[in-house]
């Protein structure tokens, strides 16, 4: 991996004049059709969430509601508000822990290469690709044996551990770009492992932390398999609660739609406000850019 976190996708397009090409109008038609494909489900999501249950009718699915029913959101909040709180706590704690450990790991792997460091790193990385179904039964037993089954802490433990490969990867690539001369100069000044981390590495790590935190927060918030396996009702994150809300046949569709909006809002906001960093995490996940 000669790679750094790629930034090209987020860079400003070159300031050359638009290339002359086959039909500019054609280009915009293509873009509009594609945008419709991506946005129509979102239109339907809001149109349904804002309808009152008796206004929901399959034949008029696409019509914008005549009267906006904001109560869908408070009803959905009543059902999954607690789970949103669980998800928030889970995602914040797991992300902070995984990011801190990842930063130290990345620093150790990038700046203090020891024999076999690459092999260790490759073995760590494998953990990010495995299907979690292949570890689910022992994980369940382990969490149960620790007495953490059903609690949010069991879930946090699982997310921190399985988050380590990606956070380590992103930080390792980030620190690989820091000139070795900086570290060497600090060594000559008599600074050791921890002093260099505190004075040289950590202060320039903010962009790395932003990428890692955004990525890991999104991952943990959106995760479902561990949520369904390791928790019980009181500790369930929002993804599980939403699946229950939507799976039931009895509820009217405005409720799961409003729930989906609530569950999507945090990560969506992060993406819209900090999209640049989100894309970097996305591309870093492919190991090589």
């Amino acid at each position, binding site marked *: 991996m000669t790679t750094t976190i790629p930034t090209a*996708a987020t860079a400003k397009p070159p300031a050359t004049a*638009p290339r002359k090409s086959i039909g500019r109008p054609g280009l915009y038609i293509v873009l509009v059709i594609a945008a419709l494909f991506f946005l129509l489900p979102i239109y339907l999501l809001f149109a349904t969430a804002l309808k009152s249950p008796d206004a929901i009718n399959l034949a008029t699915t*696409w019509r914008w509601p005549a009267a906006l029913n904001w109560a869908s959101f408070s009803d959905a909040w009543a059902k999954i508000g607690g789970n949103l709180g669980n998800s928030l706590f889970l995602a914040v704690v797991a992300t902070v822990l995984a990011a801190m450990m990842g930063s130290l*790991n990345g620093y150790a792997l990038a700046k203090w290469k*020891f024999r076999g460091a690459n092999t260790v790193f490759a073995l760590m990385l*494998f953990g990010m690709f495995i299907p979690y179904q292949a570890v689910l039964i022992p994980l369940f037993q382990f969490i149960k044996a620790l007495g953490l089954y059903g609690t949010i802490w069991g879930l946090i433990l699982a997310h921190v551990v399985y988050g380590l490969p990606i956070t380590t990867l992103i930080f390792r690539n980030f620190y690989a770009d820091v000139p070795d001369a900086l570290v060497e100069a600090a060594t000559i000044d008599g600074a*050791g492992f921890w002093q260099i981390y505190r004075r040289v590495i950590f202060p320039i790590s903010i962009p790395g932390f932003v990428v890692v935190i955004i990525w890991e927060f999104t991952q943990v918030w959106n995760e479902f398999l561990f949520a369904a396996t390791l928790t019980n009702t009181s500790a369930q994150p929002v993804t599980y609660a939403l699946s229950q809300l939507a*799976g039931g046949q009895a509820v009217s569709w405005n409720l799961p739609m409003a729930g989906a909006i609530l569950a999507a809002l945090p990560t969506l906001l992060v993406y819209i406000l900090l999209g640049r960093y989100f894309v970097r995490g996305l591309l870093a996940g492919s190991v090589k850019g």
Partner: protein
Amino acid sequence: MKGLTKDRLWAIAVLTPSILLLAIFVYGFIGRTVYVSFTDWGNDPAQALALNPIIKWVGLANYQELFTGFLQGRFRQEMISTIFFTVFFILGCLGLGLGLALALDRNPKGEALWRTIFLFPMSLSFIVTGTIWRWMLQPQGGVNQLPAAFGGKPSTFGWLSSTDSVLKFDWNLLPIITAVVVAIVMGVIAYRAFASGQRTRTIVAAASAAVLLLWAVFVAPNLKMLPAPEVHGFNLALVGIVIAAVWQMSGYTMALYLAGLRGIPEELREAARVDGANEIDMYRRVVFPLLAPITLSAMIILGHISLKIFDLVYAMAGPDNTFASVPALNMYLTSFRQNQFALGAAIGTILLILVAFIIVPYLSSQFRTEESH
């Protein structure tokens, strides 16, 4: 490399907790799963949740049950489903992603806004996506109502409820089909190695292709995995799930391709134009070859995501729709609803093997290129 200084020891000390945790949670747990898959834990319901269950070693019996057992037709269909799903999902994401990237590379007005629109589903949970698309694909509503908006007749396709399938074949033919496909791949590898003058590789690949073909022709037809023919194919109930998955993930390939396109120096394209290449030739000769490594990376990442996909299927089709199901979902249900842990572990192991086929060569090639630098 310097010797073991105090600082280097600190580096190892800092890594130790993570290494230990991952050693247990990844490798230890995988080992334990494989062990469980060789036992009969949970096959007897009375023993499944017992405090000290009596667990017997049964060797490969669980795997045999999955691939040939009378009751496990659902699993076999899911194996076929996940392969079809993966192929269509990857093709969809690559095609749409490349198309969008090429469009954005032409610097349309409001480029950042378009990019945001194409990429935002990536930030959603598969459960959210699944909830939305389940509503989109209701038999009498959503997508099926769209033609009506243009004055047409509403479609009646049962997106998630269809029980039809296409590309059907008998499960008993699977060994032959697999052998022939692998033999063809080996043949291609042999040909390419031959063309680039790698002798050992040519011989090894050609020999394995020949062995596989001979086996497929002479041995495989006499093998019967099941007493009666069992027909599997691509279930049409999966089409909608593939579309939803492409909706969510094609922004990812778009971002990858866009990064690649932006990385191609303008001079290269200019040079091609000066040489008299027209726009299409320029893409074919200059741009696409440079994007090939990105395509490979994207296929690997998408492939392993697709094999693991579980939440999207769960949210869209529910747990009990056997026409729209995948092994990853079956593993969860078998283990945690029916408490058949050994069988679930066997499915988990099979998934791991499938994913490892994709990921291990990828990781090792990545690290080999790094060592050579």
